[in-house]
């Protein structure tokens, strides 16, 4: 009869082994990507097309979400601080909240769903229909044809979309707060400038670049390692979105600790 702790130990062992296997395969994929960079004639035009596709396709949802998020941030900040602080402080609070946190994280999570699901489903379908095998059998590198363009597109386009989201959200917040509080444009601008540090923009951009790279790499990895037909494509798509979202949240904490408190 097995000891009572065998089950949990076995589960933990399998969990650790599976985690290590993922790490190993991800490292191999990264190595492939690095090697594939030499074939710039292949990945460059595909990256440009992919970036245009990802950027153009995500713009509407990014504009919608950032406008609503900016307006709600302003309304809630106005509700909490309507009489306890000078009005200009709200300008700083709204801009800083959006640029430091809301813009990159909210847009990162939305794009993890939109771009991550798309990449994983595309590559997963290509894997189960043997298109990736076909590419390899033609002596061509899947990294330079399929992975680098996608990782680069998301690494470049997520920051671009985050900057657009920041601008739209701040604009929506500015309009929103003026609707509910007697704050002037001068107050809002003064507050925003008073609390602003140029590093804030860099911080937002660094986060966006990291999130974009993580989304691209993780979803390509999940799609590339798809198994077992349509069910496998479904599983890897879900896993890509979940894993990208979790990594974004982890990176968010990590970058805040490293960049803001070191």
């Amino acid at each position: 009869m097995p000891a009572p702790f065998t089950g949990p130990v076995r589960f933990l062992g399998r969990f650790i082994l599976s985690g290590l296997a993922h790490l190993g395969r991800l490292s191999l994929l990264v190595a492939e990507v690095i090697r594939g960079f030499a074939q710039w004639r292949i990945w460059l035009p595909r990256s440009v097309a992919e970036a245009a596709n990802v950027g153009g396709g995500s713009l509407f949802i990014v504009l919608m979400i950032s406008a609503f998020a900016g307006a709600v941030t302003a309304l809630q900040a106005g509700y909490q601080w309507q009489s306890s602080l000078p009005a200009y402080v709200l300008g700083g609070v709204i801009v800083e909240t959006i640029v430091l946190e809301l813009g990159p994280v909210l847009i990162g999570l939305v794009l993890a769903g939109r771009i991550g699901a798309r990449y994983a489903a595309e590559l997963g379908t290509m894997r189960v229909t043997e298109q990736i095998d076909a590419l390899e059998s033609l002596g061509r590198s899947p990294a330079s044809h399929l992975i680098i363009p996608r990782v680069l597109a998301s690494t470049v386009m997520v920051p671009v979309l985050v900057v657009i989201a920041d601008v739209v959200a701040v604009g929506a917040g500015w309009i929103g707060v003026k609707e509910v509080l007697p704050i002037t444009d001068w107050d809002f601008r003064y507050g925003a400038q008073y609390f602003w540090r140029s590093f804030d923009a860099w911080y937002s951009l660094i986060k966006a670049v990291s999130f974009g790279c993580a989304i691209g790499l993780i979803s390509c990895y999940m799609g590339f390692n798809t198994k077992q037909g349509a069910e496998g494509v479904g599983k890897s798509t879900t896993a890509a979105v979940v894993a990208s979202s979790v990594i974004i949240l982890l990176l968010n904490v990590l970058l805040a600790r490293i960049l803001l408190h070191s």
Partner: protein
Amino acid sequence: MIVLSGVRKRFGEQVVLDRVNFEVQEGETVALMGPSGSGKSVLLKHINGLLRPDAGSVKVDGLEVPTLKRQQLAELRTRIGYVFQNGALFDSMDVFENVRLGIADDSKYRDLDYARDRVRECLRLVNLHPDEMRKLPAQLSGGMRKRVGIARAIAGAPKYLLYDEPTSGLDPVNADVIDELVKRLEEELGVTSVMVTHDVRGAFRVADRLALLYDSTIVLEAPPEEFRASADPRVRAFLERDFDSTSFAA
């Protein structure tokens, strides 16, 4: 020349290939038959290095495929055209781009004039009109997709052609067209071919030699007459079952 000796492959607990010996001489066409799930496609994928054996040797032109470095393997693959079961065409690319990807030499691949001529020539060899070049795979019938897959495989002027069930899922007329094509490519291009198939009738029409993969191993490898005359019960069972179903369909 392709030589597999003592090849073993297992996926988890399931042994798919067990001490398989298989040989293909230059210029011949060998049909590899066997029941579904017997490991025919797995064997084929060992030849161009898409899979590595757990044990044994896979040699193509004297090169030990599983030990080749990345660059050497990519180079070898340009000499081996692989025709996938369902075409494995790239959905997002039109027929021209799909076939163009098969051009092995990078400078020729980038030369648009050469690529256009080469794609046109390959489409002609597989009986497709150049007007089909701008169509996407989704706009093609099953038989046309298979022929585009063959056109892509021959675009790099390979020395070997590996066909993974080229006639599966096709009606008898289209299956005959593909069989004719395999035979014609062997004659016109002088390629050495390995064809994995269920279709006994097609295999006898096309192949110089036939092999039966059964129970994870090759039970017989022989010319058509010898294969047909074999008294091995596994060969008889396979042939008779297929002939029965063919006569039933007719």
